[in-house]
């Protein structure tokens, strides 16, 4: 379990983080979203004890990463933004070093790193010097390092940056597999990735938490939006829609056909607003070609969150 409590990080008069609090329950995956420079990396560095917060504290499984570093870090695997690789070591040596550092028993290290290499697809590269690896493999080696010691908590800073599409899919698959039973906090600025992998999302903007929510709760709970395509010209239908009971607003979307209208109709929260729309259209004898509920996408939530302060 990860708890970040009121963490503030200040450099002189510049705030990198402002009173950030978040919790990641055991067995869940939390995605930390934010633009470049939003403070994601600083937050992860504080969580892992690499940096100290100006105020507030970060707990890993209940241990303060600053005051009880050895207990806190025992169950931590951290993949920093730039994988911390020693260029003069081979993949195998490096992982053995990382495993030993994390307190894996000497006798079980060879089997352990074999497993980790297998998991990260590094088997063929075990004898290669880290300096000779391509960017994708360096990222995997960094990932493998984080998995050494089989940590309960994984902190990953933009784990898929610099990988090709196939590798990205593989790493995402890995995160999904590992997510079962572990606590994972990862940062990203790729929205679809977060949507695929996470149970919860926290949006960080200018050093402060803007939005924290479980995925699937992106919608404004007070309204429901329908998207409908009807076989009628825009002029004849839009004003009628606006007058419909319980409608908050109507947005017309462009269509390819002049005799059709596509619109998003937002209702105040009510059960089955589709019924109202249908009765209106049938009373006007306008055929309904398509009807669906609109889910607010993460993208809209994100853009809304980061534009609030502008």
């Amino acid at each position, binding site marked *: 379990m990860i708890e970040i409590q009121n963490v503030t990080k200040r450099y002189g008069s510049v705030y990198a983080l402002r009173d950030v609090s978040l919790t990641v329950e055991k067995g869940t995956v939390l995605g930390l979203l934010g633009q470049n*420079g939003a403070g994601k990396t600083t937050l992860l560095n504080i969580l892992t004890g*690499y*940096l100290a917060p100006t105020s507030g504290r970060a707990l890993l499984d209940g241990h303060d990463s600053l005051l009880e570093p*050895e207990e806190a870090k025992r169950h931590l695997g951290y993949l920093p*933004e730039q994988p*911390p690789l020693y260029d*003069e070591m081979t993949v195998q040596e490096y992982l053995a*070093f990382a495993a030993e*550092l994390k307190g894996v028993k000497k006798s079980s290290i060879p089997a352990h790193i074999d497993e980790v290499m297998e998991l990260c697809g590094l088997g063929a590269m075990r004898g290669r010097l880290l300096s000779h690896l391509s960017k994708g493999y360096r990222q995997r080696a960094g990932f493998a390092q984080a998995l050494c010691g089989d940590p309960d908590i994984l902190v990953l800073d933009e784990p898929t940056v610099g990988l090709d599409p196939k590798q990205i899919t593989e790493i995402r698959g890995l995160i999904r597999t590992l997510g079962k039973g572990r606590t994972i906090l990862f940062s990203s600025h790729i929205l679809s990735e977060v949507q695929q992998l996470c149970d919860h999302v926290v949006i960080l903007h200018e050093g402060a938490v803007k939005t924290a929510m479980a995925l699937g709760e992106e919608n404004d709970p007070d309204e429901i939006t329908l998207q409908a395509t009807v076989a009628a010209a825009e002029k004849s239908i839009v004003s009628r829609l606006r007058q419909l009971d319980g409608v908050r607003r109507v947005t017309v979307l462009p269509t390819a056909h002049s005799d059709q209208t596509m619109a998003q109709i937002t209702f105040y929260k009510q059960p089955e607003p589709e019924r109202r729309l249908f009765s209106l259209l049938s009373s006007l004898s306008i055929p309904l070609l398509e009807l669906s509920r609109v889910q607010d996408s993460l993208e809209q939530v994100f853009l809304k969150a980061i534009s609030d302060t502008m």
Partner: protein
Amino acid sequence: MGTIFKRDFLAYFRTPVGYAFMGVFLTLAGLIFYLSNLQSLSGDLLSFLAQLTSLCMLLCPLLTMRLLCEERQKRTDQLTLTAPVSLFKTVLGKYLAAAAVVLMTVAFANVFTLIIALYGTVYPGEWFVGFLGFTLQSLSFLALDLFVSCFAKNQMTGAVAGFGANFFLWMADLLAGKVGVPWLEKALNFVSLYDRYEPFLLGQFSYSSVLFFLTFIIVCLVAAVRVLDARRFSEGGAA
């Protein structure tokens, strides 16, 4: 600590640094040996050791510059500093790795003792005291350089600063004679590494000097840990 020591020690010999240190040290030591002992047909081991100090001063920063600065530059410190190992053990492991390279080099330098023994006499007591003093002094330079390199982001800066610090402490006693301020004179005399080394060069075993060197090393290492610890509060802006 053992893990860090092993990695850093091996890294010296995976990169040219370890070889460069030993090679340059022993080559130049050979040159000094040729000039001061072979040319003048002298069997004086202690005067030879006295001249090796400058080599140590020059080369020790080479060993320490990579321990912290390179890790910081390449951000590999994010692995060691987020592992369940205390900062002190990390620093100690790194220091011992560099110390091991120095000890190996000093051991190799006994080739010169052997040459003197072949053609003259080496007094075991003199040999022991001389090499003990030399080793302690070298290890003190190393600890000082490690501490100084904490302040540098760049390996080059770390090395140059280390050399400056070495040089200052070595000639502190010369400065002490000129300042004319009594307390400053005392302070400078106290920290002068040369003053502490001198008894050994005269063939005397000085408990106070041994104690001073050991304390000096510990103080430097603890200070290094403090600086690294404090840096977590002051640094780490957008990477």
